């Protein structure tokens, strides 16, 4: 029972971060119907940028966060500007493939600058720990969970109640209509990629502090894909619940069946969900008849 409790807690903690990264997917998908396969590598780059400010320049936590998050925003905008902008009007499949290739470039950049070995471990949130019943919680875990959850709530409110968020949802529906209503499609694209970059950077920092700053961080992007799909690609709430679910499945399966079984299990669940509810639990069902 204690073991189960432990892995459930660990699963939920990781799940909240998957959810945060999945929100990055949802954000880009909602504004451009592009599935951004490079989200995991944006996370990697964001984490390494933070590490650069924190460990190489030896800044305090707050200044390095204040530098890393805008860098994440700029990273998202730069990616959109260089690779996605020229493809507006091309078939969707080329926009999706370009994000796959982008992940090669980003991984290559990171290993060109920082090498392929894991970086030196740094503490971000202090090293305390407390217990709930018999389950040990470290400060890092709790902070990660809190930050991820807070960021998710902010993003959900943003989509529902701000003009910008509504404009993004409009852009996803159709570029021409929105443009003729006076909303700049390009500006919306830039901003949504920027926010996706920030979400990726936050996720990267949180994951980096718990798992260490290493190239393997990009695999979280891989796990966030099933999370976004199970929740439904149009729905931020779905992304969170999907993230928690995926975190739980991964952690429970790897706890009982061995470490390597976690990731494949999430993809098995993904394929099953696609068979039963192809648009995810909270996604928008598009009905087409010929």
């Amino acid at each position, binding site marked *: 029972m204690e073991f189960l409790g432990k892995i459930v807690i660990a699963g939920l903690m990781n799940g909240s971060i998957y959810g945060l990264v999945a929100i990055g997917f949802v954000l880009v998908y909602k504004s451009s119907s592009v*599935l951004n*396969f490079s989200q995991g590598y944006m996370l990697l780059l964001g984490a390494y940028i933070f590490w650069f400010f924190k460990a190489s320049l030896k800044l305090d936590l707050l200044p390095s966060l204040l530098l890393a998050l805008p860098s994440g925003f700029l990273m998202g905008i730069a990616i959109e500007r260089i*690779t996605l902008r*020229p*493809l507006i009007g*091309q*078939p*969707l*499949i*080329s926009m*999706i*493939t*370009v994000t*796959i*290739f*982008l*992940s*090669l*470039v980003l*991984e*290559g*950049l*990171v*290993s*060109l*600058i*920082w*090498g*392929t*070995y894991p970086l030196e471990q740094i503490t971000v949130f202090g090293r305390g720990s407390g217990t709930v019943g018999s389950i040990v919680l470290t400060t890092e875990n709790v902070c990660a969970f809190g930050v991820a959850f807070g960021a998710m709530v902010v993003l959900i409110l943003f989509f529902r109640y701000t003009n910008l968020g509504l404009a993004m949802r409009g852009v996803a529906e159709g570029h021409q209509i929105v443009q003729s209503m006076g909303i700049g499609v390009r500006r919306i694209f830039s901003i949504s990629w920027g926010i996706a970059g920030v979400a990726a950077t936050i996720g990267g920092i949180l994951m980096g502090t718990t798992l260490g700053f290493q190239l393997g961080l990009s695999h979280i992007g*891989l796990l966030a*894909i099933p999370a976004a*799909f199970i929740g439904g690609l149009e729905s931020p709430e779905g992304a969170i619940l999907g993230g928690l679910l995926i975190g739980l499945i991964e952690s429970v399966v790897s706890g009982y069946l*061995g470490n*390597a*079984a976690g*990731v*494949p299990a999430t*993809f*098995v669940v*993904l*394929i099953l969900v*696609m*068979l039963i509810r*192809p648009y995810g639990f909270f996604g928008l069902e598009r009905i*087409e008849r*010929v």
Partner: protein
Amino acid sequence: MAHTTYYPPSGIYADSFKKDIRIVKTRTQLILAVSAMLLLVAVPLIPGLNSPYLLRLLIGIGITIIICLGLNILTGYCGQLNIGQSAFVMVGAFTSGLLNHSFGWSFWACVIPAGMVAAAVGVVFGIPSVRLKGLYLALTTLGAQIILTWVALFHIPLTSAGFTVEPVKIGSFYFDTPERFYYIALVFTAVMAFAAKNLMRTRWGRAFIAVRDNDRAAEAMGIDIFRYKLIAFAICTFYAGVAGSLLVHYMMWAQLESFTLNDSIWYVVMIIVGGLGSIEGTIFGVIFITALKELIFVIGPMLEGTLAFLPIGAGSGLLLVIIGGVAIFFLIFEPRGLAHRWNLIKAYYRLWPFGY
């Protein structure tokens, strides 16, 4: 010169359907094709060209062409993205390898079953996605890559450790050196390329193109989208399986490390650089990317040696940046790939000196 493919060779009039559908239309084309084939056949015999390095490179190119032909049929012709192709190569390779290792079947008996098993596994993974549009196949194929690798690694003892496979033989003649296996690779690549070229000119091929260009219109015309997507996926994975079978019998050793997600992405890079929806383009793309890769394998360590400030592993980083960058460059500036360049050159030749 937008519609380059519409310039037929000068003086050739398609006055019957039979003449119109010929692949080789003029004597020049026939001479060029035959001499290219003769040159390829002669490569292992010409001194200076027949180094084992070059032959291994050519064999690799041949096998990769088969893999990418399948992928191009699915992605280029039918418009479905597959980022798990190397998992299906793995299924073919292990099927063939296990049949040979455990039951003693020869390569010739293994190669078709390998393709069939890969196609069957492919269809299983294809079913959930073909109900849906767009990017969903990308997801299930990504899932296939992860799940199949995991199964091979943890659930089949033989495949997790790797095992030996017999080389190809006819009678008692073994194709166990690069010079000998080269011919097997050449014949298979030529046959598979020719089959793909012709398959795409049949009813199936036209249906694939219709599904890619506008699936709603295709369905309205009476094309069963579900069926044709599955057929395209089965063909794609069949090609992967055959290539996998060739690969293990060439290496004489089957192991997991040759089939990673990165390999799958490389195949997509190759067909995009070569040209989506073009058989010639597939061949150009594979050759181009393989040559680029070899070049970087030479330059990367040199750079790492001379520029001391670069961290360890910068060479592999450089490879990724350049390959990814080339692919993005092609997607943005030359979305029709090298095949389009090739058609422009052909059109220039045909229209010369009045190329306006």
